[in-house]
């Protein structure tokens, strides 16, 4: 495997991203970025199967418009990692800010700890392959899965009494599903979101995702492979169909 190391210390994001692109062009299969501190747009619009290791804290929009690469962050991430991502994987060994996986359309985003507000907003899916997945090990703030039109958001609540305590879950959701470990109080649901019973077949469906997440962070999947979840989905795929009357 051809590995390229880049020291990002004090570097602006544009030259850093240029170096990453140049390394990929030169055939790098793994790129290690050391001393990352707030540089935005790492992985922006990158294609292919390259693996990027980020040592430090990347700035906003990590992996935005990304289509293929895997990016592993040893640290926290700023807001909107996975923004409008098409394919690939982000693994964050820490927490992340707001709007994680905004409009994500494929690939996976795994966050070990917590995320901020509006996680999974506008996530969408349009065929079987293009199914985005966001897994949060800890908890998320309000408006999780807002306007969601496809894909899966899974919140495990590791280390929390309750996986979700913030409101507005799935407001305006019209596709996809939000699965939360344990019980979710009704008053936390947003407009248009509905609770469904989590069944054995649901577990079978999400078990590979749970195993995949646990692999990344060294958890034992057995701790999560039961039906102690709440599934939240859309009350309708046409949430606003009855809102209007013709002129």
């Amino acid at each position, binding site marked *: 495997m051809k590995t390229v190391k880049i020291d990002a210390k004090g570097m602006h*994001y*544009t030259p850093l*991203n240029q170096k990453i*692109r140049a390394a990929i062009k030169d055939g790098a299969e793994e790129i290690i970025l050391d001393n990352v501190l707030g540089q*935005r*747009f790492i992985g*922006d*619009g990158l*294609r292919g199967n390259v693996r990027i290791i980020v040592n430090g804290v990347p700035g*906003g*929009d990590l992996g*935005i*418009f*990304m*289509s293929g690469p895997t990016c592993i962050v040893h640290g926290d991430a700023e*807001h*909107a990692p996975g*923004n*409008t991502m*098409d394919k690939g994987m982000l693994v964050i060994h820490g927490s992340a800010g*707001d*709007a994680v996986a*905004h*409009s994500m*359309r494929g690939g996976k985003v795994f966050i070990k700890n917590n995320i901020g507000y*509006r996680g999974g*907003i*506008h996530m*969408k*899916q*349009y065929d079987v392959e*293009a199914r985005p997945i966001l897994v949060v090990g800890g908890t998320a703030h309000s408006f999780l899965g*807002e*306007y969601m*039109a*496809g894909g899966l958001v899974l919140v495990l609540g590791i280390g929390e009494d309750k996986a979700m305590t913030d409101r507005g879950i799935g407001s*305006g959701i*019209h*596709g996809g599903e939000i699965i939360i470990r344990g019980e979710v109080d009704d008053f936390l649901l947003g407009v248009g979101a509905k609770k469904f019973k989590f069944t054995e077949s649901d577990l079978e469906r999400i078990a590979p995702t749970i195993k995949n997440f646990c692999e990344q962070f060294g958890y034992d999947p057995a701790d999560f492979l039961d039906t102690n979840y709440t599934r939240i989905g859309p009350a309708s*795929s*046409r*949430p*606003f*169909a*009855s*809102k*209007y*009357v*013709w*002129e």
Partner: protein
Amino acid sequence: MTLGSVPPKFKVSIDRDQCMDCGRCIENCSYGVYRREGDKILIESRKCTGCLRCVAMCPRDAITLTEKPIDYRSHPLWTREVREDIIKQARSGKIILSGMGNARDLPVIYDRLLLDACQVTNPSIDPLREPMELRTYIGKKPSKLNFRKTESGDVELETKLAPNLKLNTPIMIGHMSFGAISLNAQLSMAKAVTELGTYMGTGEGGLHRDLYPYQDHMIVQVASGRFGVNIDYLERGAAIEIKIGQGAKPGIGGHLPGEKVNEEVSRTRMIPVGSDAISPAPHHDIYSIEDLVQLIRSLKEATEWKKPVFVKIAAVHNVAPIAAGIARSSADAVVIDGFRGGTGAAPKVFRDNVGIPIEVAIASVDQKLREQGVRNEISIIASGGIRSSADLAKSIALGADAVNIGTAALVALGCRVCGNCYRNLCPWGIATQRPELVSRLDPERGAVQVSNLIRGWTMELSELMGAAGINSIESLRGNRDRLRGYMLDEGMLKILDVLPAGA
């Protein structure tokens, strides 16, 4: 129903002596006004939208369509429209949905601005024999150019120029998405702009693969729902536009009803078939100018700083300071959409009451950017109710670099502005996804009609400029001296920075 029905808006009649009973009216009316019963064609005027398809297709000119005179007691305040809206809402408890642009009888400022013409002392220019420079570059311009001398003594440009769009005419076609309008409508316009050397917008519905051959003349749009946005889409566009607001419905987002989301729309927008396409007003990763900077730069980084990025906002009261913020946000152009801007669907209360006229928005933005010394750093594109080359010339004289047309291009394709775009039944094959209706619009012929319109306006613009003694679009831009206000109040003239007629 205690409220009963309201009188029909239109009266449709057939001259039975002329009618040859061919049934084309039945075939052509997608709203179901006509039906055959026995040997007679019956008419249900109540269903008529005034789209005029039947009139246009009747081989005997046998159909008459008139707006029906008022059946209510006349009242200056409680008009027919006001009363019918109340009745509709009393029945349904819903938001009234409308199509096309603002339909209120408000004064049009363009019509109260008059262009100048030379007479004796400063002769006019004849565009027939003098070259007229209409080429327009949209994008960032440097505030100054630096040169350096090479060892061989040559002079080289040192300043790095930002990517610009080169327009052969300052007329572009604004963003109307696949989904809201048909693929044949988009294809017609794409062929026209490619032939003319100008650009059109994809709207927020993604880029259909049949439009790839025209991608060098398409501006791809990124709206809050990010429909159809991926790296391939961004790289295909000649430029990228971030849609923040729209003149027809400032402050609210887009919503394509699930009926219009068929297989093709689903694939292009990258959303499930039959589900509503919801694109709320705010981008949920933009809560400040700093956040806007972040999205602009993320788009530039993704495309390696090779493409200009525009930001579209609706014309609202504080449009000038917003534009000043955008000018400093790394954006290459600000697109301002006035309150006459069209739409496939908007709540009627927004369409008719929210926003400000494009004329004042252009003038105040241009003025603010000049005051702040950043006008040269960004282009201004104006849209929202541009109806003629006169509106175009006046927009440029008020400070725009170029205009986007929308409804005018649709009218060139056959649209009769009936305002029922949201019903997916457009009989002209424009605002519909129904294959049998879409096939009524031939993209080849449509392209000729749209390019004829733009070509005609471009020639008229040359003539108007020549008459004003101007031979370059650069000299018309922001040149308020070539405008005079007529029947405009002092306050309005001050905002427009235009003298009254006679001054």
